[in-house]
């Protein structure tokens, strides 16, 4: 009996794996060229508002040390 239980457990696990793979295999995909150009476009559209990318002037940088008594 114990070996039957063990086998049934493995079958259940294998069934779950197959189920999972079916889901993953069936999703819709796009070409890497399209995906890449979309990533590039997003970067381009948001570049100007990316402080670490553009660099910050002292007045805009909240972490730059200003006069010791100001907030």
């Amino acid at each position: 009996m114990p070996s039957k239980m063990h086998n049934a457990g493995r079958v259940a696990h294998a069934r779950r794996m197959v189920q999972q793979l079916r889901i993953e295999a069936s999703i819709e995909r796009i070409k890497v060229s399209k995906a890449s150009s979309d990533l590039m476009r997003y970067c381009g559209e948001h570049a100007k508002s990316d402080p670490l990318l553009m660099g910050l002037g002292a007045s805009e940088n909240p972490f730059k040390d200003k006069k010791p008594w100001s907030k």
Partner: protein
Amino acid sequence: NLMTDESPRVPEMATQEVQPNETLTHLKTESDTLKTKLEEERAKLHDVELHQVAEKVDGLGQFIMKTRRTLKGHGNKVLCMDWCKDKRRIVSSSQDGKVIVWDAFTTNKEHAVTMPCTWVMACAYAPSGCAVACGGLDNKCSVYPLSLDKNENLAAKKKSVAMHTNYLSACSFTNSDMQILTSSGDGTCALWDVESGQLLQSFHGHAADVLCLDLAPSETGNTFVSGGCDKKANVWDMRSGQCIQSFETHESDINSVRYYPSGDAFASGSDDATCRLYDLRADREVAIYSKESIIFGVSSVDFSLSGRLLFGGYNDYTINVWDVLKGTRVSILFGHENRVSTLRVSPDGTAFCTGSWDHTLRV
């Protein structure tokens, strides 16, 4: 129809007419066939490399990034940190059991809690800024409301929310203070209701410890990505608990995962010394960020606001900054005196914070 199997954990012994061994072989064959099909489908759409498409983009110049603040106060390795939405407060947690809330502008400590366990590997700030969550070797995730009264004993108001059967590796509030997502050494992730402590959904599929997770940007919908010791990064549907995509190209543990700001991709950092970018709509890895000279593992990754830069904290004490599109390194930053264990860009993208085994945090 396997799709209607509603209780996958109950072995269907009573209804089985075929010998279990034959079923197992049959299933293994189907499993292998599906894996091959998956690879073929992905390969069909692999018409170009990201860095090739990015050749027409301007290169990035020199970057000068300086440490602006050093936060000292932890008595041992800093393991995790998170920013408050107010862009100035930070919560950090340490091997010595302490969780500290800092004002990063002034470097003042605003709150401190001592957890009943050591190795507090996970901490997170609530979206409201009014609470923090943390956990580690206690196998739990607890929420501490932050009081305006600095003298109040935070530990008294502690609420235990999540219970795992092994260490808590990461936690994150969803888009409200009401729900927390956790990942654990027990191989699962879970979604919890903070108020009641009730388990709302569990996520099974990793074959080993889950080390990290990240929620998709709110516009993208109810998914999150997790990474683990099984070298897999899994994308999950939060409502159904279903794993919808899985990526296995890393050669070692995945220590960190982070969504690209548009939600269409995510980056990962691994003990195999590489960071990688996976595009969700192309369903494949589209970039590897590596150099022969980089041989130590990546502990944590995060993107700059536009997604053009990827910051990686490494076990060789450095931070490498990568051009996400071109795949090249644009800067290497020194300063920490031990492993960088955690790294997050601030909510408004003006800075990033790193935590280290050298007991300090730097902004």
